[in-house]
């Protein structure tokens, strides 16, 4: 890198910047998207009345692979973790509550992996959404401490089917 001509390095830096700008977030669901509104949010043939809430864009990709789910998503962008300075304000939670309270949503599925931080996030988000819609949580068929990302497709599909209402 140090031996390369300065111009070349500048061009590389420029290219990296552009790549970073291109992969932004959907302004509705916060899934990774090059466009202001992602393909899933734009799709006309998907159910508008179900929102699946996940921690990370990788979880959207994992769930999409199952082809079982036909609703919309909302990506929180992480989990509540006071140790890491992440509170609800640092996550896309208020935008979620806004969506659920304004749109005609019949069910919010919380598909967050069962860890300490995952459970806390599920309970917190669940409390905020309950006044507006039915809230279910995905059945914990997932490996202990495992992320949605690593769960195989069959397990995920089964988990979706077996979701329970949050109490």
């Amino acid at each position, binding site marked *: 890198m140090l031996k390369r001509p300065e111009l070349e390095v500048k061009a590389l830096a420029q290219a990296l910047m552009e790549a970073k700008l291109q992969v932004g977030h959907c302004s509705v669901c916060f899934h990774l998207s090059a466009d202001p509104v992602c393909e899933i949010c734009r799709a006309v043939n998907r159910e508008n009345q179900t929102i699946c809430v996940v921690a990370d864009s990788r979880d959207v990709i994992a769930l999409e692979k199952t082809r079982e789910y036909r609703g919309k998503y909302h990506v929180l962008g992480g989990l509540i973790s*006071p*140790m890491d300075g992440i509170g609800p304000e640092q996550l896309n939670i208020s935008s979620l509550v806004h969506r659920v309270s304004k749109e005609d949503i019949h069910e919010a599925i919380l598909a967050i992996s069962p860890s*300490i*931080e995952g459970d806390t996030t599920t309970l*917190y988000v669940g409390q905020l959404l309950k006044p507006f819609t039915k809230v279910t949580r995905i059945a914990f068929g997932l490996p202990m401490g495992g992320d949605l990302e690593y769960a195989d497709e069959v397990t995920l599909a089964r988990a979706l089917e077996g979701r329970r209402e949050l109490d």
Partner: protein
Amino acid sequence: MYLKTLHLKHFRNYSDQRVEFCAPKTILVGDNAQGKSNLLESVELLATLKSHRTSRDRDLIQDGEAWGQISAALERELGVAEMALILRNGSRRTAVLNGEKLRRQMDFLGTLNAVQFSSLDLDLVRSGPGERRIWVDTLLMQLEPVYAYILQQYTTVLKQRNALLRQWGENSTASHTTQLAIWDAQLATLGSRVIRRRSRVLKRLTPIAQTWHTAISGHTEELQIRYAPSVPLTEGDPALVQQAFLDKIQQRAIAEQHQHTTLVGPHRDDIDFTINDTPARQYGSQGQQRTLVLALKLAELKLIESVVGEPPLLLLDDVLAELDLSRQNQLLDAIQDRYQTLITTTHLGSFDAQWLNSSQILQVKAGVVTP
């Protein structure tokens, strides 16, 4: 169970050392700082996934190396178990059991059982409550491996809750309160599990320890072990313990907001030992305290044996020389050849000739073990 071989690679001051055990008792003899305790520590890691000397794998890996490995062949009634624990600098461990890489490290627990007895344990009665909690937790992990998982989860909740309490201040919002209520519930759920299990194991251990204690003290003293949980323990229904937990959190809420830390839960438990109704911690003589610890260690051996169905290993680190002759003999009498025992010492002089003859003796010098 019987540990047949141990192989240490880049572990502490061992570069590549294979050790074969060929007698129920092995005495590791050598000057200070040669690697005797390190060897026992490697067995402790296989039994508990923990070392009582460090919580960082970096300390366990030989200086300048990127990884270290402890492997062992363990004879159990059901057959030989091949165990390997690979430690990495700045990355996760790998646990391999009979050639199969375990998905969860926790599944390693329960294969090798060992009771550790070092000169540090002699202070168990006198030291702070933290040492006694570690003692009971280590025992529980071997008896009920799932406890390791419960305790780890409890610790995570505790750290998260403390972090939230540290952020507590003037501008705390309703969101803070909502979050805290969720952490309270998690703390109570996991905390009650820890408390119930600690209470259960102490109930089972107490009569065995009492029997030993009576024998060692020459039928003059009566030992009582009382679990003192930070939350009142109600018998029976787990839901009642949880409710008591939540009530106690409510009582301490203001204090917690001022001190910015969690004041209720098993991280503040203690265990009280009394001899003839007087607290052993304040009033026990050093001799009485040592008798007590010896009785506890022997009780651990018996309890693990009865739960697991096989006699566990006993690791005696420097402790024998620190016990007087009568207690030494009582210990050695109790273990006989029943429990495979690894003993470290700087001098063979303090051992009975009969003992020396029936033991395997290994010299330890600068990370090398020789017959």
